[in-house]
């Protein structure tokens, strides 16, 4: 016959009571704490994932904006270059026109001055030439030559008057 020691029964009971107590006061809180911790970590992970997604979106948005800014910068740079080229061209044109105007004015002044000088030179040449001729003739004029001059020049003048009037007087 099998004899069972009462102490063993008590020990078994004690064991179960201990297990229950441990389960109630140790395992359960620990499991709850672990669950809570696990949930917290899960939440944090979710937040991190969300944050990563948000960061990724922000990064894409930033890249897009950066790209747009770069495009706008390029466009404005190109526009500025075009304006600079136009302004440069305009300044060159204006400078060229101004220089042409100055050149034309200078040429006109020079031409007027040359014409004036040439005219004065012509007058001087004519004055000197006629002066010399007059002086030479004045030295050579005598009664005989005066006779010839009066005869010839007066004859020419009177003939012209006769031709004009067509009716000679005294005849």
């Amino acid at each position: 016959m099998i004899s069972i020691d009462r102490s063993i029964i008590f020990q078994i009971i004690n064991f179960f009571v201990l297990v229950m107590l441990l389960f109630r006061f140790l395992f359960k809180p620990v499991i709850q704490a672990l669950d809570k911790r696990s949930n917290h970590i899960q939440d944090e992970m979710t937040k991190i994932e969300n944050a990563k997604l948000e960061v990724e979106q922000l990064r894409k948005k930033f890249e897009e904006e950066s790209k747009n800014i770069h495009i706008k910068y390029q466009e404005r740079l190109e526009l500025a270059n075009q304006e600079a080229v136009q302004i440069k061209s305009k300044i060159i044109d204006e400078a060229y026109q101004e220089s042409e105007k100055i050149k034309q004015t200078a040429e006109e002044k020079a031409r007027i001055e040359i014409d004036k000088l040439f005219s004065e030179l012509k007058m001087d040449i004519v004055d000197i030439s006629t002066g010399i001729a007059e002086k030479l003739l004045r030295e050579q004029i005598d009664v005989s030559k005066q006779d010839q001059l009066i005869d010839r020049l007066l004859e020419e003048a009177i003939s012209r008057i006769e031709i004009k009037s067509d009716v000679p007087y005294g005849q």
Partner: protein
Amino acid sequence: MASKKEIVKMITPLPLTESQRSLIKTKLNRITDLNHMIFQEEIDPSLVGGIIVICGEIYIDCSLKTQFNKIRESLLREGIV
């Protein structure tokens, strides 16, 4: 026929001789009907040569001075020089 007379002014660089006066009178008779001419003579050396005759409305300038002036004006006007 009524006798017409007129003052004939003659300007010359040298004094006129009698033959010159006669010559001038003969030539003026061809364009005037004057019977009597009263010569009024004036000496102007600037004329160089020739004569200027003023008879009533007739003005005849045969002086070398005027000829020179004409040549001078012609040279300047026509741009020969």
